[in-house]
């Protein structure tokens, strides 16, 4: 379980997060939604100890993120940021292999190679495995980065807007893959999403943030109503239900 207690964050005079408390139990997909600047990415990077904790506590399976050795945490939690830079001349297979670093400090065993192959397959990259990253499209590169985070083999996977650059087909494929690893492998996925209908279709729980606070929390069916969405995004959008899944008509 990821337990967040009374976490606040400031950049200089500007407050980013106000006294956030949230429990994310093990298993399932939790989607973080909210307008730009709500603090979703900041919260994610605090959980993944990419930023030092200023106040409050965060623990993962009982390990406090600010006191647990970095290399131990890397076996529990993996993160993919939205602006991951890839400048090195690398092949897809090599990049995915970096995900195994926390386990063997860079020496790949046959077990590691099996995991790498499995990740490549899971994210439909087997044909691209020997291509250089710089020759891939933005969406393919994005999938390679997700595959690297998956290859890390952690129970918790944090993804910051992984659907950026992906077309409709691969957005759906990625969400389905995440659904599969949550259901079959028992992984816990926390994902920042802008496409609210992807959240409606694939997430077990949606946490909505606005201006540094959590303002709504529940299952897609509970949360995706016109009134709640009005509160989160400050404009009116109709919600219809198709086959039991809410569909938000935010584009009209």
């Amino acid at each position, binding site marked *: 379980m990821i337990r967040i207690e009374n976490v606040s964050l400031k950049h200089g005079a500007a407050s980013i997060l106000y006294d956030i408390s949230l429990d994310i139990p093990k298993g399932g997909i939790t989607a973080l939604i909210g307008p730009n600047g709500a603090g979703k990415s900041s919260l994610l990077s605090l959980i993944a100890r990419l930023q030092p904790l200023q106040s409050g506590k965060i623990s993962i399976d009982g390990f406090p993120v600010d006191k647990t050795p970095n*290399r131990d945490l890397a076996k529990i939690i993996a993160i993919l940021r939205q602006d991951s830079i890839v400048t*090195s001349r690398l092949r897809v297979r090599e990049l995915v292999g970096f995900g195994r670093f926390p386990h063997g*400090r860079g020496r790949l065993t046959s077990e590691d190679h099996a995991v790498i192959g499995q990740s490549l397959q899971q994210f439909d990259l087997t044909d691209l495995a020997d291509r250089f990253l710089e020759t891939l499209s933005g969406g393919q590169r994005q999938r390679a980065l997700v595959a690297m985070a998956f290859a890390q083999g952690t129970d918790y996977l944090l993804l910051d807007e992984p659907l950026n650059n992906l077309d409709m087909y691969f957005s759906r494929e990625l969400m389905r893959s995440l659904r599969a690893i949550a259901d079959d492998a028992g992984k816990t996925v926390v994902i920042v999403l802008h496409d609210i209908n992807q959240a409606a279709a694939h997430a077990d729980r949606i946490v909505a943030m606005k201006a540094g606070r959590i303002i709504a929390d529940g299952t897609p069916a509970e949360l995706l109503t016109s009134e709640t969405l009005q509160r989160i995004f400050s404009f009116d959008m109709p919600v219809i239900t198709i086959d039991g899944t809410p569909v938000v008509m935010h584009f009209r």
Partner: protein
Amino acid sequence: MVDRRLACLGVAALLCILAYMTIGLRGNIGFVLALRATKLAALIQVSVSIAISTVIFQTVTNNRILTPSIMGLDALYLFGQMLLVFLLGGLGYAALDPQLKFSGEVLLLMALAAGLLLPMLKHRIDMGLMLLAGIILGVLFRSLQSLLARLVDPNDFAVAQGASFANFNDVRTDLLIFAAVLTVVGVVIAWRARHVLDILALGADSATGLGVTWSRTVTGFLLLVAALVAVSTALVGPVAFFGLLVVAVAERIVDTRRHAMMMPAAALTAIVILVGGQTLFQHGLGNSSTLGVVIEFAGGLAFLVLLFLGSRK
């Protein structure tokens, strides 16, 4: 299994070394060979330390056109030399025990590099600011050095000048053993850290996510770079663009940025260029030109090409 391209580079480096040792052997062969062997050892050390330090520095700063000398690390070293001449006089400077002086200088350079860089790393200030600070400090140290050069008397100046220009003909053999120990230790550390360096190349966030503690690791590598720069600067003087040239060439040859390949490739390329070039200039061209000038010229061109290609992307 060793990569074929790496093996080719190794063979080329060996051929250069053989040519350096054997071409134009005359007179007392034992004496000539011993003389050449010491010079060769120094050239190889310089090649390896410049190549490795540049690879590490580029990885840590995530920048392909930076070298430690562009950041002013060797300017700092030379300023130290000039300061010593100024304080002790040319005679006092020459009378210093070279090994004691050298070890002091290495420690001082590492301490200053750390003192300059650590506070910035602690506050997680971005690399851009650090590099800007480095470049400005480089200018500062160069200016201070030339100020001191104007203050000392001409005899002392001549002593200091010997240390301030790259010279591959007249290497400092008195420091050889000591520098060799430092180089070997540095290379062993760098080789053992080759996988960590691969991870660092992904950037601070990804590296942290994969369990590498960014600031501590980067600090360690910067200290290593400072020590290696001290080795090469002490042995032959400052070379600004040589590291850039060999890393750019090596990367084209092995076509990867994995450090297990890049570090040996860069070191071997450096040996080919330095030892091969020195052989060519001594025997082929009869010392009519200086290798240092040609290397700096080619390195400067490589710098411009990289800059041009980078800006077009």
